[in-house]
């Protein structure tokens, strides 16, 4: 079984936020108003943070895109009381919006701030894709990230693209990748099977120095950052 992971090359990332925007377009995540931005109510599935170290004029700036880390030992999976968040066999931490009761314990537990609470119904105009409301007749997680309000949402590694790609027999990691990987103008993001020795991500991880965020917490995140 594959173990999907992401590798982000910090040397190439320019902090352009294209990944943030395209993720919102792909997954029907609203943009939100400046007011919501100020009160941190805006939903971000992928965010890009800037971290500075040092004193002017010798300041080191790191631009770090942060999707959901899809940790192998995810604290959000441990704390979800309704089993709405679970680790799929291929390593993706799925969010089943149908089971989520909106208790927000996972937002508290996530060390990477990857989760956001959705307080708006999808049919409202802030959402981009009005043609894709949740298909309430289907069981289990909906095939496209559709959700009603009152649930917690996060990056899904575009599982809908991966599942569709597997069904069509395409190669995941080369032909089919998450939206943020596909549309990064600097080609700084890579996606693939961490357990496959021939995949691009494995090759990158074996040849460059890498690190992960908040390593000390033991969450085993699957998003690796190649150092500058």
């Amino acid at each position: 079984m594959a173990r999907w992971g992401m590798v982000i090359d910090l040397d190439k990332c320019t902090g352009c936020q294209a990944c943030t925007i395209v993720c919102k377009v792909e997954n029907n995540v609203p943009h939100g108003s400046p007011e919501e931005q100020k009160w941190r109510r805006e939903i971000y599935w992928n965010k890009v943070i800037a971290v500075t170290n040092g004193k002017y004029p010798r300041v080191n700036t790191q631009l770090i895109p942060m999707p959901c880390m899809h940790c192998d030992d995810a604290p959000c999976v441990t704390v979800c009381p309704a089993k709405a968040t679970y680790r799929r066999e291929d390593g993706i931490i799925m969010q089943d919006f149908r089971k989520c009761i909106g208790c927000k314990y996972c937002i508290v537990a996530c060390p990477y701030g990857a989760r956001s609470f959705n307080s708006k119904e999808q049919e409202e105009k802030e959402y981009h894709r009005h043609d894709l409301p949740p298909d309430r007749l289907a069981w289990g997680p909906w095939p496209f990230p559709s959700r009603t309000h009152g649930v917690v949402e996060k990056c899904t590694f575009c599982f809908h693209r991966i599942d569709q790609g597997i069904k069509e027999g395409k190669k995941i990691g080369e032909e089919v990748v998450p939206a943020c990987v596909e549309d990064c103008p600097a080609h700084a993001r890579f996606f693939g099977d961490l357990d496959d020795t021939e995949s691009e991500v494995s090759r990158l991880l074996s040849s460059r120095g890498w690190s992960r965020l908040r390593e000390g917490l033991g969450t085993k995140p699957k998003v690796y950052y190649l150092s500058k």
Partner: protein
Amino acid sequence: MHLTFTPIEGKSRNFSTLEATLMALSLVGLMSFVISYVKGHETLGTSNVIPWGMPIVITIYLIGLSAGSLILSSLTYVFKKEEYRPISRIAVFLAIVLIFGAMVGIALDLGRPEKSWRLFIFFALNNMRSMFAINGILYGGYFVISLVYLGFMFADKPKSTKIMAVIAIGWAALVHMGTGAIFGFIAARPIFYSPLRPLEFLAAAMASGLALLTILLVLIFKLAKRDLNRDIILSLGKLLLALIILLFIFVFVDKLTHLYSPHREPMIWLLTGPFSSIFWGLQVGCAYVLPTILLVHPRYNKTTKAVIGAAILVVIGIFAERFVLVIPGAAYPLPFYPGKIEGIWGQPGSFPFTPVEIFMSLGIFALMGLFLILGLKHLELLPAYESSGQKPASQ
């Protein structure tokens, strides 16, 4: 002197006004809930950085009060402290009302409360590794146990009551230690993370529960125009002092541990940052320092007024303690990467007070108050001594 229990008459003007006010406040609270449900949680003060706001602070506070109240009332039966027997029925009833209020508080804060039935399909639909789910089981069981306990008390079955008292003490301790564990087991938030959290919560529960019990006793007896035994109040005061000291030890050790790396920065922010005034003024001042002075000072510690004053201070202070745990604990920016995180991601969150949230919180308290006065009127909860010729003064 034979101890019996009677209801209050509840026909006075004061009672009717109180009843009407509580009903009105509860209705306003319910309407606020409807607004928050329909419009979304953006009407509450919560955000993605502080996901748990006033309803959760109030909920954990109420659970503490309930568990504390129950443990202390059970002292009558388990340790045979006869002087607390008069307050035993009210204490258990109060515990039931408080845990009901707490469960309503949680339900109001959920994004989709109708799906919470899943938490009760144990092992199949709920995640037994989650402290939230385990607490759901504990609260449900606690509610049932308290009801059965009160039932045995009303039915005058002393042996069964004693068994229930032992079970109730143990279960109540588990309940509030579980609540503490919800926070204490989260490694991501340095201010929450501590193995002392369950014990700290238990100590806070007992202190605040006892304080509330004392205040309510004095109030009810005053409103019903009955005399209260002075010795009970003084002995409750001594117990309160012991519990405050115990709580202070836990909080002190926890904060001191966190002043050493790696949790040093968040703790310094808590102690000196925007929430420090609430911490030092309300939590340390009202919950620990001032009550201790009142209960220890030779001039005051023999007066009932001092005990009542200390109890009021403790009730306020421990509410502030819950607030200072939840809100700053969540507000502190997560340290994703060493260095200074620029922009909103590096800023501590802020927690605005919104009217919807305020009215919803008041509504929870009003609902509990309503249940309390209805119970006082229709159930035999207040103690009365038959042969001393004490009759409830007609109102």
